[in-house]
């Protein structure tokens, strides 16, 4: 998220626009909307992107209202070809640039991005999210949740206190939210976690202060805190007005998808992740060897030629 924000600002977008992009991008994405539909319920599936949009817009507008200087910087978009970087699009007419690749080539590149770049960035966090959800399901007693986190402002504030420093991406936070709702956490409090978790974390906030300034970062935080809590409270009202229990919907397996297709999908995701895990294990082993200072005997020491671990876009950068 942060690299994209930096390029956005370099290209001439104003602070408000950068802020709003930095909120709505991590808080919601096609992938997290899809997984929300799978694990939570339709109301949540709609509420999540809508509240993300409102939060982003509120923060961006506040930013630009409180900003003194007018930003009339020239806009220089980066037009590099997204298919294979064949051309930077600068000395190339847009019509020609658009026709460098056939539709099939573009779709192919899209599939490649989906199952290599995107999944590589997501997979580690996603499996951590699944395990965390499993731990919550097994470890946390329902009574405790009912007593302390059932509903109301205290539950929201608790989720905020957990979500703001924690780094968790939107997709990976969803199974955790599902586990929390199953234990009796109110959907509004879960929404606070789903929005505040991905939008902020300790590492990103420090970097962000460098990009958009300290004051702008404070506005960013306050906007997120206020708007997620307010909408969390509203969402709880919506559920009680409609007489729906989020807990009941989430616990029901409403999908009519045959079991074998579900299992095939799950195995596909696991298979797609194997290369990444092997690379991580190899990286860890190499680091271990370096740490214990044992030169590989008999072989000339080879410089590390493998590419460094893929930087998680979905991680603190």
């Amino acid at each position, binding site marked *: *998220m942060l690299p*994209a924000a930096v*390029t*956005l600002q370099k*290209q*001439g977008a104003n602070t*408000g*626009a950068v*802020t*709003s*992009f930095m*909120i*709505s*991008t991590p808080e*919601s*994405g*096609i*992938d*997290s*909307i*899809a*997984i929300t539909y799978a*694990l939570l319920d339709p109301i949540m599936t709609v509420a999540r992107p809508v509240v*993300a949009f409102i939060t*982003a*817009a509120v923060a*961006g*507008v506040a930013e*630009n209202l409180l900003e003194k200087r007018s930003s009339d910087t020239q*806009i220089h*978009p*980066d*037009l*590099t070809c*997204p*298919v294979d970087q064949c051309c930077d699009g600068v000395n190339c007419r847009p019509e020609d640039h658009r026709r460098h690749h056939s539709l099939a080539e*573009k*779709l192919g*590149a*899209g*599939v490649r*991005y*989906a199952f290599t770049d*995107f999944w590589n960035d*997501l997979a580690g966090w996603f*499996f951590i999210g699944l395990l965390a*959800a*499993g731990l919550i*399901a097994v470890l946390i007693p329902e009574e405790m949740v009912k007593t302390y986190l059932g509903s109301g402002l205290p539950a929201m504030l608790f989720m905020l206190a957990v979500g703001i420093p924690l780094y968790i991406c*939107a*997709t990976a936070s969803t*199974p955790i939210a*599902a*586990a929390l709702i199953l234990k009796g956490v109110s959907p509004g409090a879960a929404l606070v976690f789903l929005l505040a978790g991905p939008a902020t974390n300790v590492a990103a906030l420090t970097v962000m202060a460098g990009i958009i300034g300290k004051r702008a970062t404070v506005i960013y935080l306050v906007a997120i805190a206020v708007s997620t809590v307010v909408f969390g409270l509203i969402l709880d009202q919506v559920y009680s007005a409609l007489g729906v229990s989020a807990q009941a919907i989430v616990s029901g397996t409403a*999908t009519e998808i045959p079991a074998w297709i*579900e299992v095939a*999908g*799950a195995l*596909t*995701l696991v298979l797609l992740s194997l290369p990444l895990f092997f690379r991580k294990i190899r990286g860890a082993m190499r680091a271990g060897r370096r740490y214990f200072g044992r030169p590989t005997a008999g072989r000339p020491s080879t410089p590390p030629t493998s590419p460094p671990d893929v930087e998680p876009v979905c991680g603190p950068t």
Partner: protein
Amino acid sequence: MNFSIDVISEAWLLLRESALYILFGLLVSGFLRVFLNPNTIVRHLGKGRFKPVFKAALLGIPIPL
């Protein structure tokens, strides 16, 4: 031992429930990346004080990062 089996079976259930949706989400995100590059978003924002804010918020919604 029982404990870790319980945790993993809970995680596996969630994985089964969500895998197809994730694959679909990834695929759409991949196409989006080709047709709407986050780096070129600024082209669509335009100028002004507030219009770019709303457009950036809207464009950020589908983009996974």
